[in-house]
């Protein structure tokens, strides 16, 4: 630095470094995009394309059903890597909802699938037409019902109508995932990286990093309140079928994978801005939540209704809430993002 190596210069440099460390929203946003968002959507795009291909192969009699199951789980795993990034490209054209229609409080997905199957609606043979079908009958949760629930679909024989439906849903998911990936690459990443008065979404880098912090917070909320809280219901009335993708046995896996994705976002984007002590506190909270969430004996549908095992699910929720508290205090505090009393939450 041009001020030279004198004491004043050293102090100045240190002070500058501290200020920069506390306020470098631009670098934070870069790290989030490069280290988390783009790889996450690239993975979703690749895995859903593979799922679409395996569905076509199975329904054409060229692959075993197990190949579809495996591809479905890989695609769902990839979705858990990005399911918290609910802004911009995921929200345009209802793309994320078409990939993941959940929660389904009113059981619309199985009902809509059953209606399509009963009427053998030819819309499944027209990709453009299928993109207009109710989102309840599209996406990974439609596959959860179609592939794993004998009542709404069951493993369908190649050539059957349910198999054509399976191919249509898988193709539609891949199309949506590719659209999100393209939208990020073709413009949204630049929008986040180049805030300013003419930017239609982000006037400052702080707003862009606040968006990412909001996604981190919303992801933790979703795991605590939706993935764990909703199936827990109350002690007297557990609600196992509110668990996420319970037909395919994914509830606990989803909770863990979502936490892992959020931990990655925190680690790569946010923690470098924190003091080592604060960063370690957040890391410890994530590590503990990941450990506790993986510890209870699955399936979650049984665990929430079993007084002896339920406590393990409750412990997982409590551990996620500790992460929420640590993120709000340490990350929100360091970045000046928790000050938005009226801004972070709705109403």
């Amino acid at each position, binding site marked *: 630095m041009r001020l030279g190596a004198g004491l004043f210069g050293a102090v100045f440099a240190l002070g500058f470094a501290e200020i920069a460390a506390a306020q470098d929203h631009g670098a934070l946003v870069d790290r989030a995009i490069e280290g988390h968002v783009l790889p996450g959507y690239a993975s979703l795009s690749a895995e859903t394309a593979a799922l679409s291909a395996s569905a076509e192969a199975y329904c054409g009699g060229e692959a075993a059903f197990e190949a579809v199951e495996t591809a479905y789980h890989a695609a769902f795993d990839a979705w858990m890597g990005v399911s918290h990034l609910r*802004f911009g490209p995921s929200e345009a054209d209802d793309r994320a909802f078409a990939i993941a229609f959940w929660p389904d409080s009113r059981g619309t997905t199985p009902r809509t699938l059953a209606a399509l199957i009963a009427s053998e609606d030819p819309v499944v043979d027209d990709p453009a037409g299928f993109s207009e079908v109710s989102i*309840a009958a599209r996406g990974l949760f439609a596959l959860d019902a179609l592939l794993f629930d004998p009542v709404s679909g069951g493993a369908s024989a190649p050539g059957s109508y349910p198999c054509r439906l399976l191919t249509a849903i898988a193709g539609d998911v891949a199309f949506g995932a590719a659209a999100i990936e393209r939208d990020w690459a073709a413009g949204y990443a630049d929008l986040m990286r180049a805030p300013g008065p003419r930017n239609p979404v982000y006037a400052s880098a702080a707003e862009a990093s606040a968006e990412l912090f909001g996604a981190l917070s919303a992801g933790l909320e979703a795991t605590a309140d939706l993935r764990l809280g909703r199936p827990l219901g109350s002690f007297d009335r557990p609600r196992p079928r509110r668990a996420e993708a319970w037909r395919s046995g994914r509830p606990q896996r989803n909770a863990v994978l979502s936490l892992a994705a959020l931990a990655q976002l925190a680690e790569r984007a946010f923690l470098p801005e924190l003091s080592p002590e604060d960063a370690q506190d957040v890391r410890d909270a994530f590590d503990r939540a990941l450990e506790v969430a993986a510890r209870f004996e699955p399936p979650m549908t049984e665990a929430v209704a079993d007084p002896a095992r339920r406590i393990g699910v409750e412990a997982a929720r409590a551990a996620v809430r500790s992460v929420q508290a640590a993120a709000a205090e340490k990350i929100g505090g360091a970045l000046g993002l928790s000050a938005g009393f009226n801004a972070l939450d709705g109403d």
Partner: protein
Amino acid sequence: MSRRGLLAGAGAAALAPRAGWTAAGAPAFLAAAREADASFALHGLDARGASRFAIPLPARGHAAAAHPLRPEAVAFARRPGRFALIVDCAEGRETVRLTPPPGRVFCGHGAFSADGGRLFTTENAFDDGDGRLGIWDASAGYRRIGEVPTQGIGPHEVVLSPDGGSLVVANGGILTHPDSGRAKLNLATLRPNLVRLAVEDGALLGQVEPAARLRRNSLRHLAIAADGAVLCAAQWEGDLRAAPPLLALWRPGAEALKWRVAPDPWQARLRGYAGSIAVDRSGEAAALTAPRGGLALIFAGPDLSFDRAVLRPNVCGVAAGGDGFVFTDGGGGVLRAWAGSERSIETSAASAGRAWDNHLVSLSA
């Protein structure tokens, strides 16, 4: 239509009866706050925004409603709300505490009937997932006397029409359940609406919803003009690149909403989220706050065209005050601004650690 046509006389007709009791020493405004020690309180504020009294709240508050005749108001918990406090505004103390019946939670807002005999509270009947308007007998110790459907999911603010005959409810459309806190359960199928219900029996007198492309615009907060025109502030649950309109106008009997937008760059600066709305006493101007964007917009004239922006971090509460608007913010500050003027004056400085909550409720005409 004359210049004063659309919104003429907004405050005066509806609020005149309260002038008597506010002169007796009651505060000019109510606002909930988070204090420096992280506790929550309801404050009575004087005309400049200085706190005249503070009543501890068991949890975070939201909005309040003033009784039309008595020096009394009701302050609501933030949703999902488990309490509402009846407050003696002259004494600055809680007199009655309301709790929602089983299977219901308060949604943060309420309104009195014109004669002050009944209180209506927006509620979520969470196991059915639909909205209710709870009815309480304000002349008999606030006994629960019934409820009617709000004809939508997730009701939020309710206001009484100037003629006292109907209630307008903003059904925000967002489904929540206490088991999952404030998590939004149905954004994929969001379908907000505004309804007009008869005060007498809750009958549906009118209903309007956003056009299909704006279905993800949750209609949440309301102000009403003397001629019955309803102003609604929305919160967008979609891609911000759409720079959605957030201020809707529903004229009595109209079958569609009319949206009002600000020119670039202001509309985008709202960041898809309006927190409160108010009409000033002239009835010629409306203010919309946008805490995420850190600004408020004032619209004025018979067609409510954009007048000016007021930049203020975390500004959210707004009410008519004097010949303009009074704003509160999340930094504990109180600000005045006017339509047709560049002026804004901080009447009460930001206070260390206090955050004013979403709404500022006027108690006086």
